[in-house]
């Protein structure tokens, strides 16, 4: 068996074929040819890891959403509602052609939220990251919350002096505003461009119910702002379990908005 003949049967390795399925002189060639031997062992490892990866690390739905958006940008796929309409469709048919994606997108939003929340790393060592988007107020007699296990805490607002384990509290200035005021006075979060699915969402609303666009756009901006606000906080304090749950809630609110729109504009 030659090296080129070995290369021809290599794809069977990727497909999971056992060594016994290969020609008899396959193994003998590998013993005599270090290059082919290394190649085969590498390929076996890659194939094995790939199979494990496929089982354990299914990409999040947002990955597919992004791929779809990228394909649309590159013109490789087209949105159904961009095609010329030759025959006026009934409302039901138009619905199926323009807004069918809302339900999976709503599910994808939720899944994305779950992915973001569950995959947010929790640092073991304090790393005080400056987060420009949200100013986290630190009252004079308290520190940002840490969800780590602790001894029985004191009850009552006047005596509690918790210590943040993962993030040393920043000293609050004497003239600090009340925390809720500080929160509302935080610098506004930069308004990013709407995601492709949001743009498509608003596009469908504009088409199906033009008078509702402003309402849904406003609500969408709110839920997106909520998501960004919590995300920015979590970037700063990734160990806050309640904030993580808030992020999940914010994504669920966005999914709810999609669902309500789906129900209304059909």
């Amino acid at each position, binding site marked *: 068996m030659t090296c080129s003949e070995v290369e021809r049967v290599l794809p069977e390795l990727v497909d999971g074929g056992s060594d016994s399925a290969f020609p008899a002189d396959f193994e003998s060639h590998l013993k005599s040819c270090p290059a082919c031997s290394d190649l085969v062992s590498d390929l076996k490892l890659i194939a094995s890891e790939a199979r494990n990866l496929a089982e354990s690390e299914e990409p999040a739905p947002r990955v597919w959403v992004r791929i779809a958006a990228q394909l649309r940008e590159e013109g490789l796929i087209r949105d159904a509602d961009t095609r010329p309409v030759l025959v006026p469709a009934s409302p039901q048919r138009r619905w199926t052609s323009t807004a069918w994606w809302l339900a999976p997108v709503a599910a994808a939003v939720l899944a994305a939220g779950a992915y973001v929340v569950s995959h947010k790393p929790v640092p073991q060592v304090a790393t005080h990251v400056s987060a420009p988007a949200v100013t986290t107020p630190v009252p004079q007699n308290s520190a940002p919350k840490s*969800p780590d296990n602790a001894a029985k805490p004191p009850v009552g607002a006047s005596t509690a002096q918790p210590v943040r384990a993962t993030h040393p509290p920043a000293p609050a200035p004497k003239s600090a505003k009340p925390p809720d005021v500080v929160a509302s006075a935080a610098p506004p979060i930069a308004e990013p461009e709407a995601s492709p699915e949001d743009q498509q969402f608003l596009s469908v609303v504009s088409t199906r119910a033009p008078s509702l666009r402003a309402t849904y756009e406003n609500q969408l901006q709110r839920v997106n702002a909520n998501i960004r606000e919590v995300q920015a906080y979590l970037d700063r304090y990734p160990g806050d379990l*309640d904030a993580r749950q808030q992020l999940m809630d914010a994504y669920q609110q966005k999914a709810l908005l999609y*669902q309500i729109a789906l129900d209304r504009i059909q």
Partner: protein
Amino acid sequence: MVVLQQARIDYTTTVLTVVLVTCLSAASLAETKKEYSYTVGPKANISVETQYGAISVKPGSGNQVLVTATFKSDNVEVDQQQNGNRIEIASHLLRGKDAQTGHIDYELLIPPDATINLRSCSGPLSVERLQGDLTLEGTDAVVDIRNVENGHVHVRTMRGPVTLTDVRNGHVEIDSISGEIHLKAVTGPLVQARSGSGKIFYDGDFGSDGNYKFTTHTGDIEALVPADVSAAFRAHSVLGRVRHDFPLQPRHSRFREEAGRSFMGTSGLATSEVLLRSFSGKIRLKQR
């Protein structure tokens, strides 16, 4: 004198014109009513969906479902269908799509054990004295549910406020993006309310053996409870203020208390679990 007479004539003409226009408008907006009746078995499933208009549901007699639809115009009709124990009723807009021409108000009298699904964008939606499962959805609809027991209650709105009064012994799940949520005497094994920017207000005793979870993003949460409430509380606002007005017994928890931002503790036998959580809203637990 002539000027006065002319002014009187002008006045009379104006009044007559207004009366005439009003009469014509009233005629054009004349309401018409249609009634539909159905016979159903136990635990019937009834769905009503309308873009514009109120839906009101009350218990009727026996196994009859009586639906009264009030039309504001002839530009809309009612699609209705019965398949066995399931009834579907929906407004069908014929021309135009505005709140005036597409408006139908529905009044339903149904068996108390029926399951109902109501959807109206404008609302209001109101339900009272039923014992089946309820699902109410409305974009801007005001939702009002009263004297309901033993059934699950699911409510979703975008901006519409939600009020539940005297709701017992069922799962309650309310989701609103920006609507306020008012719960008065609402108890059950599971009571969850979530609003983004709307406030959540609870007035009750949290029953016993229940799990209560109220969450907002920016909306405030306020709970008004009697002194003898039996519950374990945990409240936390990431960026907002949190406080309570009466003493709580310490409780062991994996969560660390943070002055002004969170509290936890028990009252009475702590038979119910109560979680109040917000991102930047204020949370307050008050004694009645």
